[in-house]
C-alpha cells in the first residue's frame, strides 16, 4: 500500500465539517428525516398522505429487491409476485379469519420468506439472463394464478377482496389515514435498520462477495447456495411485508394490479434510486410514486415511456442512480470544504 492510499483511507470521522464530524452529520440528517416523517401526516391532505404512505410501502419493497438484485446480484423481474403473495395473505386473513390487521403483516412476511426461499432454491442454478427470464415468466403469469377458479373461494377471483381501513388504537387522536401512515412508518424504520445492519455486517459482505465473484466467495468458506437462497427469502419477506401493508393502504386487492407492470415499476425504482444502495430505495420509492402520477396527466402512454427512458438513460448517465449522484456530490462538497488530504 502506498502512502497516498493510507492517507485517504483515514477514518472519515476524524475530519470535521462545520464543527461536526461526518458521522455526527449523518446522525443529524437521519434524525431530521425521522422528525420530518413524523410531522408529515399533520401537514398533508388525505390524498397526499395516502401518497406518502405508498412511498413508505414502496421503499420497503425496493430495499428488499435491492438486497437481492443490487447486493447479491440475482436479477428479479418478478418481485410483483411476492408483493402479491404478501397482499393476498393479509387480505385473505382479514376477510376469512378473525386475525387482527396488525398480526397479518408478520404472517405475510413469514409466508413470503418461505415462498422466496423455495423459489430461490431452483433459482440457484440460474444465472444472469436465465434468472431474469424465469422471474419475468413469474411476473407475467401471476395475475392468471391469482384468478384461478379453484382459489376463487379465498381470493375472490377477478373481483378481488375489499379490506376496511383500521382505526387508530388506544384512543390516539389520529384519523385512520394518519394512523395507517404511522403504522407503515413503524414497519419501515425497523426494516431499514435491520437491512442496514444486515448489509454492513458479515452477512452483507458475503452477499456482495457472491455477487462479485461467486467462486472466490465459495473458496473463502461462504456457503453460496445457502446465502443465495436465504437472500431470496429475506428479499421476498421485505416485499411481502410491504405487500400486506400496501393492501391495507389500498383497501383492495385484485389480480390485475399485480401484473408485469408492477414488477417493472420495482425494477425502475431500484435502477433510478440506486443499485446496491440503501438510501436509493427511498429515492426510488419517491420516483415511482410521483413521476407516473405527473406523467399520467400528459397521456396514458407517458408513464411507461418515462419509465423506459429513465431505465435506459440512467444506465448510460448515472449507473448508480440518484443515490450515486448524491454520494458523488457530497464527496465533492466535503473535499471542497474540508481540509485537503496531503498529496
Amino acid at each position, binding site marked *: 500500500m502506498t502512502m497516498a492510499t493510507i492517507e485517504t483511507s483515514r477514518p472519515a470521522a476524524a475530519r470535521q465539517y462545520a464543527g461536526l464530524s461526518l458521522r455526527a452529520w449523518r446522525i443529524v440528517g437521519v434524525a431530521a428525516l425521522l422528525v420530518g416523517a413524523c410531522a408529515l401526516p399533520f401537514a398533508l391532505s388525505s390524498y397526499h398522505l395516502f401518497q406518502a404512505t405508498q412511498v413508505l410501502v414502496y421503499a420497503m419493497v425496493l430495499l428488499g429487491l435491492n438486497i437481492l*438484485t443490487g447486493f447479491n*446480484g440475482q*436479477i428479479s*423481474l418478478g418481485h410483483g409476485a411476492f408483493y402479491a403473495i404478501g397482499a393476498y395473505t393479509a387480505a385473505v386473513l382479514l376477510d376469512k379469519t378473525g386475525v387482527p390487521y396488525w398480526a397479518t403483516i408478520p404472517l405475510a412476511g413469514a409466508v413470503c420468506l418461505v415462498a422466496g426461499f423455495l423459489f430461490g432454491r*431452483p433459482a440457484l*442454478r*440460474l444465472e*444472469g*439472463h*436465465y434468472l*431474469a*427470464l*424465469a422471474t*419475468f*415468466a*413469474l411476473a*407475467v*403469469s401471476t395475475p*392468471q*394464478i391469482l*384468478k*384461478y*377458479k379453484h382459489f376463487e373461494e379465498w381470493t375472490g377471483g377477478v373481483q378481488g377482496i375489499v379490506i376496511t381501513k383500521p382505526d387508530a388504537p388506544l384512543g390516539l387522536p389520529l384519523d385512520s389515514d394518519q394512523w395507517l401512515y404511522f403504522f407503515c412508518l413503524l414497519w419501515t424504520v425497523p426494516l431499514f435498520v435491520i437491512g442496514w445492519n444486515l448489509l454492513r455486517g458479515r452477512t452483507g459482505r458475503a452477499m456482495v462477495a457472491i455477487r462479485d465473484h461467486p*467462486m472466490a466467495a465459495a473458496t473463502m468458506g461462504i456457503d453460496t447456495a445457502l446465502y443465495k437462497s436465504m437472500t431470496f427469502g429475506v428479499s421476498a419477506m421485505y416485499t411481502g411485508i410491504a405487500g400486506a401493508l400496501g393492501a391495507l393502504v389500498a383497501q383492495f386487492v385484485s389480480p390485475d394490479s399485480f401484473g*408485469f407492470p408492477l414488477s*417493472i415499476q420495482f*425494477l425502475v425504482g431500484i*435502477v433510478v434510486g440506486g*443499485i446496491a444502495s440503501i438510501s436509493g430505495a427511498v429515492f426510488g420509492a419517491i420516483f415511482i410514486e410521483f413521476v407516473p402520477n405527473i406523467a399520467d396527466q400528459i*397521456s*396514458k*402512454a*407517458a*408513464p*411507461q*415511456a418515462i*419509465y*423506459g*427512458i*429513465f*431505465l*435506459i438513460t*440512467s*444506465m*448510460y448517465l448515472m*449507473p448508480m442512480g440518484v443515490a450515486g449522484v448524491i454520494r458523488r456530490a457530497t464527496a465533492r462538497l466535503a473535499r471542497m470544504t474540508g481540509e485537503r488530504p496531503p498529496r
Partner: protein
Amino acid sequence: MQAFLHQVLSGLANGGIYASVALALVMIYQATHHVNFAQGEMAMFSTYVCWLLLQAGVPYWVAFILTLGFAFAAGVAIERIIVRPVEQAPVLTVVAVFIGLLLIINSLAGWLFSYTIKAFPSPFPSDAWYGSPFMSPHEVGMIFVTMVVLALVFFFFRFTPLGLAMRAAAQNPVSSRLVGIRVGWMLAIGWGLAGLIGSVAGMMAAPIVYLDPYMMTGILLYGFAAALVGGIDNAWGAVLGGFTVGVLENVAGAYVVGTELKLTVALAIIIGVLVIRPSGLFGRVLVTRV
C-alpha cells in the same frame, strides 16, 4: 379423438408463431449472449406498421414485404444506437436497457395507434381449399409461411457468404475480425434479421390474438419457453421447441389446467427446463473450466 386432433393441429399452428419468436431470440442470443426482452414489442410495432400500410390501401403481400424491410431496418437501428453502448456491460444493465426498450416501444405504439383493440386481416381467405374441419385456412397458411421463413433463414446461413460471415462473427469474433469480417455490422444485421423474423410472427399472430400494444406479451413468454426447450443456442432446437410448446400449451389448456392458466403452463415449462436441463433438448452443455 377428433377434438384432440383439432387441439394438436391448432397447437402446431400456434407453435409456428412461437417458433419464429424463439428463432429471433436465439439469433440474438447466439451473436451476443443477450436475451432480448423487447423482441415481442419490436414484432408488435412492425405489425402496426403493416396495419397502417393496409389501411392506406396497399395490397397485403406488398405491405408484408415492406413491413419486413421496416422490421429489418428498425432492428439494425436499435442495435446500432441503443444496444451497442452496453454490449460489454454487466447483465443487470443489459436487462434494464432491454426492459426500457420494451416499455418505450410499447408506449410509442399506444401513443401513435391508441390502446383500442383492432382487427387484423388474414391473407388467407376463410373459404380456401386448404381449410379443413381440423385447421382453418389461416392456420394452414401460418404454418406454411413460418416454414418458408425458416427455410429461407436456413439457406441464408448455410449457403451465402454473408451468412457464413455472420456465423463466424458469432462464434469467434476475434478471429473473424482478423480475416476482415466487420463483426459489429454482422451483429447489427443479426438484430435486423431477428426483427424481421419476429415481425413475421407478429403479422401471422395478429389475426388470431387481434392487434393491440400488449398482443405479444404472452407470445413472447411462449417464445422464451420454446427457445429454452430447444436449447437457447440452437436454431433448429428453437423451431422444434416452438412446435412442442404450441402443442403442449393447447393440449394442457384443453384437458389439464383449463384456458385460464395457459400462461402458467409457460412458466412451468420455463422453470422446469431451467431446473432439470438448463441447456435444453439440443443445446450445448456448457462446461466451465475452473
